[in-house]
C-alpha cells in the first residue's frame, strides 16, 4: 500500500466517555492510517472501542480536546466547523451499521435517496439510487418499508444508502453482526465487489473470519491499535 496515498488517518486519538461522574477512557492514543482503495478490518473484542474509533473516523464524534486528531486527506476534521463535518459525512464517507438503521417511515428508495436530499429543496433524481438498488438485487423492493424487508435486504439497502453519493470511504460497523452466516457472506461479497471497483473500506468486527476478507487487519486492544 506504500504507493497509495493515505486518505484517512487517526493520530494519537484519545476518547473518554463519562458514565455519571466516572470517566472511562475508551481510546488511549489510537493510531491508524487508511490508504486509498484499501480494505482495513479493525478487530477487537466487545467494548474495546472499535465502534468509537469508527465514529471518530466518520466525523460522528470528535476526539478529546487537544488529544489527537482525525485527518481526511491531510485536513483535520477534528477541529473543522460543524458544517464542514456535515459535508464530510454526506459526501466523503458512507456509514453501514450492524442494525441497518433505516428510517421506518420511508420506503427503500427514499431511504437510499436520503443522503442526496441533504442540502436540497427539490426531490433529487432517483435514477442513481434505483440503479444501485437494482444492482443489489432489490429492484422488486423499491417501495417496501424496512419492516417488510429481510435482514439481508435491509443491510443491502443500508449499503446502497451509504454508497449513493459515491463516497471514497465506506465505514462499516459490524455489517454482518446481525445476519446469519450465508446472508453475512453475501453482504461481504457485495462489499468485496465494491472494493474491487476502488472503494476504500474500514470495517469493524469482532469476528476473525469476517475480518479475514479484508486486505489488512488491525487489532484494537487497551484503547490502542496494534497492527
Amino acid at each position, binding site marked *: 500500500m506504500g504507493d497509495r496515498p493515505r486518505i484517512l488517518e487517526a493520530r494519537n486519538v484519545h476518547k473518554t466517555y463519562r458514565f455519571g461522574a466516572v470517566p472511562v477512557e475508551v481510546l488511549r492514543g489510537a493510531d491508524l492510517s487508511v490508504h486509498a482503495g484499501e480494505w482495513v478490518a479493525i478487530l477487537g473484542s466487545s467494548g474495546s472501542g472499535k465502534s468509537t474509533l469508527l465514529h471518530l473516523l466518520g466525523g*460522528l464524534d470528535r476526539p478529546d480536546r487537544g488529544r489527537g486528531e482525525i485527518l481526511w486527506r491531510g485536513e483535520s476534521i477534528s477541529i473543522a466547523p460543524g458544517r464542514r463535518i*456535515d459535508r*464530510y459525512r454526506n459526501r466523503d464517507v458512507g456509514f453501514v451499521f450492524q442494525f441497518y438503521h433505516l428510517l421506518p*417511515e420511508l420506503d427503500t428508495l427514499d431511504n437510499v435517496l436520503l443522503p442526496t436530499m441533504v442540502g436540497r429543496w427539490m426531490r433529487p433524481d432517483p435514477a442513481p439510487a434505483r440503479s444501485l438498488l437494482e444492482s443489489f438485487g432489490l429492484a422488486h423492493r423499491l417501495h417496501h418499508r424496512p419492516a417488510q424487508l429481510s435482514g439481508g435486504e435491509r443491510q443491502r439497502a443500508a449499503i446502497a444508502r451509504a454508497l449513493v453519493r459515491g463516497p471514497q470511504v465506506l465505514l462499516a460497523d459490524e455489517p454482518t453482526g446481525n445476519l446469519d452466516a450465508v446472508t453475512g457472506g453475501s453482504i461481504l461479497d457485495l462489499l468485496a465487489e465494491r472494493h474491487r471497483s476502488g472503494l476504500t473500506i474500514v470495517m469493524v468486527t469482532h469476528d476473525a473470519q469476517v475480518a479475514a476478507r479484508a486486505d489488512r487487519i488491525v487489532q484494537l486492544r487497551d484503547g490502542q491499535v496494534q497492527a
Partner: protein
Amino acid sequence: MYARLLSNRYLTSRLIPLIAIGAVALCVAMVVTVVSVMTGFLDLLRGAGRSIVGDVIVSSGIGGMPHYDELIARIDALPECHKATPVIDTFGLLRMPYPRGPEKEIVTTQVWAIEPLSFAEVTEYADNLYWRRPVDDAARAAMQPDDPRLDINPAWLQDGFTLVESATGRPGVAIGMHVSVANERQSDGSYRPRYGWSMPGRDVTLTLVPVSSRGKIAEPREEAFPIVNEVQSGVYEVDKNRIFAPLAVVQRMLRMDRAPLYDITADPGPDGQLPVIGETPARVTKILARAKPGVTPAALRDAIERTYREFSLEVDANRSLTTKMPQIVSVLTWEQQLRDLIAPVQKEREMMRILFSLIYIVCAGLILSIFWAIVIEKTRDIGILRSVGASRRGILWIFLRYGLVIGIFGSAIGVALAWLIVTRINDIHSAIGSDAPAAVWIGTYALAAGALCGVVWQAVRGRLLPLLLWTLATLIFMVAGTGLLFHRGTLIWDPSVYYFSRIPSQVDWWTAGLTVIGAVVFSVIGAAIPAARAADTDPVEALRYG
C-alpha cells in the same frame, strides 16, 4: 428536502399529531367563536344605537328646550348636518287592549314623542316598522306561508309613517314589538299573534304626568290612541319599553306646547282673566341629528355645540323673548350616549381575548409534551440523519416545520369550525332551547347499543385496549342519549339580558386572523424546545441507544 419529507411522514403516519391538530383546532374555534359573538354584539349595539338615536343627541332637563324649531333650523343649515328632529323623551303608563273584560293590563313605557317624517330621516324608524306587506314577489317568497304580514291592511305602514290612523284621522301610536305580549317570536325571526291578538287597529290609553321645570307634578292626563303599527329596532330593551307618539299631542298632554304667558302680578281684567304679557314657546327634551355622509358624529357634535352656544347667547340678548334657553344641555355623539352600555362590553371582549389567549399556552404545552415524546421516540432517526450528513439546523427544521404544519392545519380547521358554529349559532341555540326530537335520542341509544356489541366482541377476542375504547364509547352514547331524553330546552341567550333577540352570527375575521397567527406562533414555540433538544442530540448516543 428531507425535512419536508420526514415531517410530512411523521404527520401522516401517526395518531399523536392528529391529537395535536385537534387541540389547536378546538382552541382556535373556541377563541374565534366567543370573540366573534362578542364583536357581533358590540357591532349590533353600535349599529342599533345609531339607527335608533341618529348621530348626535342634544338633551336638556325635564323642563325642555324652548325655541327648538329655530334651533333645529340652524342645525339643519349646518354643512355637517343632514337633518335634525325634535323629540320628547318621557315616561308613561299604557293601558293595553287585553285581556278581555274591564280589567286591562297596564305597562310602564318610555314615550318618545316625535315628528315622524323628520324623525325617519334621522333614524331608521321607517325601516323598523314591522307591519308591512311584502314589496315584491321575492320578499313574499321569503316569508313563511302563515306569516300574517302577507295579508294585512296596506294602510298600516303609511299610518306608522305618519302616526295617524288614516281611516279615522285620529293620531296614533307605534309601539315596540315586545311592549305587548301579543307577538310570539318564531325561530326565523318573524312573529305570530299570540292568542290570536294583533295589535294594529286596537286602542290603548296613554297616561302622562306633566312635570314642571321645578319638578312639580300636575294632574295626569290620559288619552286613547289607536295602535297604528309596531316597531322592531332589534334592541330588546327598546322594543320592550318604547312607544312612539305624535309630538304635538304629547306636548299638549305634558303642557309643553305653546301657551299664553299671564302677568300674575297684575289684577284680573273685567273678564276675570290675568293680562297676557307674552307666550311660552313649545318645548322638547331632545334634538336628534344625523350627519351628512362622510362627516363624523364628533364633527357634527362640535358644530352643534357651537351653534347651541351662539343661539343661546342670541336668545339671552333678545329682550322680547321671555323664555331663555337652558344653561345645561348635553351634546353627545351616539357612541358617547351609549358609552355606559358599550364600554363594559368592550372591556369584557378584551378580557375574553386575554383569558382565552392563555389557552395558547396550554396549546403550546400540549404540543411541547407531544413533540418531546416524538423526539425521544425518533432519537435513532436523528442519529441516522446526522450520519448521512444532516446538519443540526436541518434536524431543528424537521420539528419546527412539524409544529408549523400542525399550527396551520389546526388553526385552519379551527377557523372552519368556528365559522360553522357562528353562522349557525341561532339554529344551535334554538335546538338547545327546545326538546330533543325522539329520533335523535333513539338514534343515540342505537349507537350505544352498537358500541355495546363492540364491547362484547372485544371481550370475546380478549383485547384490552379496544375493549376499553368500546366501553367508553358505549358509556358516552348512553349518557348522551339519556341527556337528550330528559333535555327540556335551555334558554342561554336571554334577550332581556343581552338586549338583542338574535345572537350575532358573523365571524370576526380580524380576530380569526390574529388567532390563526397566535396559534401558529405558539405551535412553533411549543415545537421549538423539543426541536432544539433534537438538534442537540449526540448522533453517537442516538445511534447507540435510540
